[in-house]
């Protein structure tokens, strides 16, 4: 209780003055976008090769490239920051699954064609390139990687379960979803406490991604009630009925613990998901293998880099982006972070064929490469995120909480109709 009056006065006035000054200075020179030489680059953990980014910071000395890794829900953070008009990054990653939803806000980004992007178009996969562009042709997203989906599995656990362990054999025995589930049945019998997949979404999303249609078509019609979605829904329920799905929430410490213990020995994921495995369960190094996924080929995610309109030196930023994502560095991206290149020139490079110790020395490109060539290209609508969510939520209600599937489907469709109405989708 030693607040002397004088001290209180002094401190009070000082802070008042400080706050007032802080207010005015902040008001005048708020760094919306870059201040001077600073150039901020936002991405998420595993979104770019950290080594390539580090090289870029030392290579481009005209600006201070400041890479920042953003945790949590990336799109929400980026949009909120843009709405807040402060500390907007100059260069930002855009996740593949969100790409379409950024397109209506295309005027928040620099049209990369104005910086000469068209000259580089030939070096990138055409379908990937087009996903980063608006219907009227403005190029917003510059391709980072693609997401060819494969089957990652723990060879040690498969061995114990009496399942094949060599990638070719696994691919052959689990060539369809039905056969994959049958293998799951055997796994469940042999390994107590183990599950084939973490949740219903692990089936659902992959089946959707194997098709060329999602939830909304080019003419803004809701197609989430059609056969391709029903089929994915039914397959997920089938896996649930057989007891192949765990009740673990993905991404929680519980999930990682189960991965580490081999209780979730199978994962159907995009190339970049291997990066997450390496990051989250480093102790399982050498035990994983990659094989072709059951039931066809799919693309999941694969992201983009964009330049925001607040960037003061778009030319510099463009130079950095194109360097970060040139074929050589895309190859590095694959080696360092399992980001599968969107530049066909990378496919031939020797580094791509380096054996991966995390996968017991397997040359994973042998599996991922063919999967990448056969990716079905789907139309992504800006409304896919909003209209896919109710279906996924209801699926979770069935698989995790035992809700009646018919009711869940009806509820999902009702919610979708309402949201579609609200968004102007018919």
């Amino acid at each position, binding site marked *: *209780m030693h*607040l002397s*009056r004088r001290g*209180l*006065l002094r*401190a*009070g006035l000082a*802070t*008042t003055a*400080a*706050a007032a000054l*802080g*207010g005015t200075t*902040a*008001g*005048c020179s*708020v760094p*919306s976008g870059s201040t001077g030489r600073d150039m901020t680059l936002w991405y998420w*953990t595993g979104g770019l090769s950290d080594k390539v980014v580090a090289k870029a910071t030392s290579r481009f000395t005209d600006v201070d490239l400041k890479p*920042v890794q*953003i*945790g*949590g829900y990336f799109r929400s*953070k980026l949009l*909120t*920051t843009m*709405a*807040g*008009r*402060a*500390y907007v990054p100059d260069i930002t990653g855009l996740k593949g699954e969100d790409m379409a939803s950024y397109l209506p806000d295309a005027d928040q980004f620099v049209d990369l064609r104005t910086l000469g992007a068209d000259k580089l178009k030939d070096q990138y996969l055409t379908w990937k390139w087009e996903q980063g562009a608006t219907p009227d042709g403005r190029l917003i997203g510059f391709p980072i990687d693609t997401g060819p989906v494969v089957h990652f599995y723990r060879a040690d656990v498969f061995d114990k379960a009496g399942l094949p362990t060599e990638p070719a054999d696994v691919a052959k025995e689990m060539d369809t979803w039905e056969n994959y589930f049958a293998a799951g049945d055997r796994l469940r019998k042999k390994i107590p406490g183990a599950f084939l997949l973490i949740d219903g979404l692990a089936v659902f999303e992959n089946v959707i991604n194997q098709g060329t249609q999602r939830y909304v078509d080019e003419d803004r019609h809701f197609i989430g009630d059609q056969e391709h979605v029903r089929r994915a829904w039914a397959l997920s329920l089938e896996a649930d009925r057989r007891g192949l799905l765990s009740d673990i929430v993905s*991404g929680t*410490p519980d*999930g*990682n*613990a189960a991965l*580490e213990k081999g209780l979730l020995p199978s994962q159907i994921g995009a190339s970049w998901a291997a990066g*997450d495995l390496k*990051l*989250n*369960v480093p*102790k399982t190094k050498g035990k994983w293998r990659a094989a072709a996924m059951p039931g066809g080929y799919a693309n999941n995610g694969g992201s983009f880099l964009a330049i925001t309109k607040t960037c003061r030196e778009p030319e510099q930023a463009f130079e950095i982006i194109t360097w970060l994502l040139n074929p050589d560095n895309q190859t590095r991206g694959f080696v360092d972070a399992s980001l599968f290149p969107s530049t066909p020139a990378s496919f031939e490079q020797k580094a791509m064929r380096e054996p991966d110790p995390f996968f017991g020395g397997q040359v994973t490109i042998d599996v991922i490469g063919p999967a990448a060539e056969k990716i079905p290209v789907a139309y992504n609508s800006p409304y896919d995120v909003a209209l896919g969510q109710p279906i996924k939520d209801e699926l979770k209600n069935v698989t995790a909480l035992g809700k009646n599937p018919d009711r869940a489907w009806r509820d999902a469709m009702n919610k979708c109709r309402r949201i579609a109405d609200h968004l102007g989708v018919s």
Partner: protein
Amino acid sequence: MTVTADVMKDAQGSQDAPGTRGTRPIKGARPRGIALHLTLMLGVLVSLFPFYWTVVMSTHTSTEIFQFPPKLLPGSHFDDNLRHLFDSIDFFGSMLNSLIVACSVTFLVLFFDSLAAFVFAKFQFPGRRALFVMMMAIFMVPAQLSAIPQFVIMARIGWIGSLTALVVPAAANAFGIFWMRQYMKSAIHDELMDASRLDGCGFMRQYWHVALPVVRPGLAFLGIFTFMGQWNDYAWPLIALVNPDHVTLQVALSQLNGVHGTTDYGMVMTGALLALIPLLIVFAIGARQMIADLAKGAIR
């Protein structure tokens, strides 16, 4: 401190006088007394256990934590966790930010609130009653009603991302004015005011020399309360501090926890533990006063 003691005596009145407790037949009820203390100790255990659990978790590696049954005794990896924590977030930077915000707000609140309270408690002026009622009505408006516009307005003036966005809106509040007014009404005697006026004291000198010295205990409570509230504030900083390199401790902590696929649980718990320590210190210093004032406020 003396003023509070007096007020406390007033508030609790004669019941605390010797008679009440002394008449309780403690001697005859020793077994019951022991049972009583055992039950109360159980409550203490429940209150304190999560803190202990945090200490335990922060001294183990995540692999140890993921084992079953859970560890109940401290391990030996606190320094590893600490190192990982400091590698993952700018712990001291964000703590400094929290400190700047909490201190600035506390001083501003103490000054503005006590000044306004002084006016409301001791002066008559046109519109006094209406202004006071309006203030109390404002007190009832939920914060989220203004959250979006506040965000938009601050985006326009360029405060989003800076600590100013947290300090300025919190610089004065209805609760503090109300609290200080109640305090000043009884604590500052009118004779004192009259005397100072006869001495030729102006308004500000009355405030500094008459009011403030008397209400220091009240200020102390408001100060500790404001500081803790600001230190723990989470929802608005989470939205307003868009620059991930420049956040308060609570937001940094939630970033640590919120990264999808967090494995290093020991590190997260170490962060939680470290974030609690400054508060516990402030509380340990002010606990007695704070608990007494809090109770008094409720029973008023």
